[in-house]
């Protein structure tokens, strides 16, 4: 690329200067530590279960034949939902913990640099790349800024919303005075009544589904078309670069 590009403009994200130097010389950087990768795949699995079971909670399967005593379909579906809900929520809390103790890339998800103009320039660049207006994408060790932005607003906020509304509904089942009711019960009058929380929780699922569709598509596309690896990075932790040009 052109020599006029300053060092600071390159490789945005949380990476340190030494890291930037590394990228020029070597073609792989360790980005996602094991807990982040584990969290990612646990979340993938649980959210899939949550979407399927959640959908069936609101729009159940056709009636089961036989006696009630021989069937527990709705019970199992709800049980799976609540178990996956617990797993996803605990994993999310663990992920926040790792953002504190893990490497700098572990923090990117939670802190889009909304106040940095350089960062917004990168967002713009990425947007142009997706709109086919930019011929070559930039290299990123962590998230690209547009991805970071989408991750934050769709995934982080969406997930927090689902966990809060989910446990508010769960608290209704556990009963008044239960921990879930004490911690999240206030959500119900805030949204109107229980029925409204159900409706918003369901809309939240569609919000996440739209995120998942886009996320998967972009990950596959970037894996093919960008200058770094994505999917294998979330499996093995190493970001591989396909060329040794600096920017």
């Amino acid at each position, binding site marked *: 690329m052109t020599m006029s590009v300053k060092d600071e403009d390159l490789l945005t994200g949380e990476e340190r200067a030494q890291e930037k130097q590394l990228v020029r010389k070597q073609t792989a950087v360790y980005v996602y530590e094991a807990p982040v990768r584990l969290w990612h795949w646990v979340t993938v699995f649980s959210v899939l279960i949550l979407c399927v079971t959640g959908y069936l909670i609101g729009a159940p399967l056709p009636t089961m034949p036989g006696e*009630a005593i021989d069937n527990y379909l709705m019970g199992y579906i709800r049980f799976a939902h609540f178990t996956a809900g617990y797993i996803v929520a605990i994993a999310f809390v663990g992920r926040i913990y790792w953002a504190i103790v893990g490497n700098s890339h572990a923090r990117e998800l939670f802190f889009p640099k909304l106040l940095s103009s350089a960062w917004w320039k990168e967002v713009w660049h990425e947007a142009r790349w997706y709109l086919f207006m930019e011929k070559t994408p930039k290299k990123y060790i962590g998230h690209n800024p547009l991805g970071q932005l989408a991750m934050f607003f769709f995934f982080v906020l969406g997930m927090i919303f689902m966990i809060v509304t989910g446990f508010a509904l769960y608290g209704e089942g556990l009963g008044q005075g239960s921990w879930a009711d004490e911690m999240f019960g206030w959500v119900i009058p805030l949204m109107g009544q*229980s029925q409204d929380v159900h409706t918003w929780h369901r809309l939240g699922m*569609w919000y996440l589904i739209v995120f998942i569709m886009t996320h998967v598509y972009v990950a596959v596309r970037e894996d093919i078309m960008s200058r770094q690896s994505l999917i294998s990075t979330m499996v093995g932790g190493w970001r591989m670069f396909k060329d040794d040009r600096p920017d």
Partner: protein
Amino acid sequence: MSQIETFYEVMRRQGITRRSFLKYCSLTAAALGLGPTFAPKIAHAMETKERTPVLWLHGLECTCCSESFIRSAHPLVKDVVLSMISLDYDDTLMASAGHQAEEVLHETIKKYKGKYILAVEGNPPLNEDGMFCISGGKPFVEKLKYAAKDAAAIIAWGSCASWGCVQAARPNPTQAVPIHKVITDKPIIKVPGCPPIAEVMTGVITYMLTFGKMPELDRQGRPKMFYSQRIHDKCYRRPHFDAGQFVEEWDDEGARKGYCLYKVGCKGPTTYNACSTVRWNEGISFPIQAGHGCIGCSEDGFWDKGSFYDRLTNIPQFGIEKNADEIGTAVAGGVGAAIAAHAAVSAIKRAQHKGDQE
């Protein structure tokens, strides 16, 4: 009157025998879920405590709460409570009328300043300075504020006083509001339902009269003893819900077998009330037992949640009424199409630039 009477004295004066009085005490203990040992305590309280007067106001309403109340399953409770209440003021039930009745209201408020319970049925409409509900020649909202000012505690009877109910349903032309929008400095006990169950009403009021304190309330101001669980939590059709056995249509096999009414819109899972335990009409039945889903009558804004017969309710904020799945599939479909188009363009671009990239 120099000395304020006790409850017991009032009852005796009303012609209630001591035997009936003691029966009433044990019934009350049972209705409140207290053990039999509480009956003598209640009796003692009633014999020694000064009578708490009750004023009962009527605003914009259909009077279904009063109708329910006077059909209380235990006639004794009803007689006792009613006779105590009618001593004071209830413009629907009291003997006097017109100026005479209004005079009683002023007198009671003056005499028992800060000591009486104010029970409100219906709610105040605020539009046009409250002209949509005139009571005693004045907008009801003024009467409400006047009576609330010196009350010890306030009971909001029914969904009207508690949430707004049908007169506050969209688009609410009279601007009817629940009473807590008008009375902001007093504890309000919400007893929602359209109407509330008679036993719940007498239970709440008896508790307050006998113990001289408010029942324990939940986050939204409803007495925990009757509103801490959903219809769904104690519904006798619940095993069919857990089994996944639903009425799919009103005249199907499942309906005849008494399956769960979830798919035909039962709001039991989101409705806090005592119907599935206390039931209605002297405990004979309740809507679900009669084969119809709960419509959520004790919940905030239940008129505005779309059809009573849909499980997924409409979201009116989206202009055209749509439920979450209709909105969700439309958006997901749109995004899916956009992804497909984007992928196609990407593939073409990539093919075009194959040479100059490497």
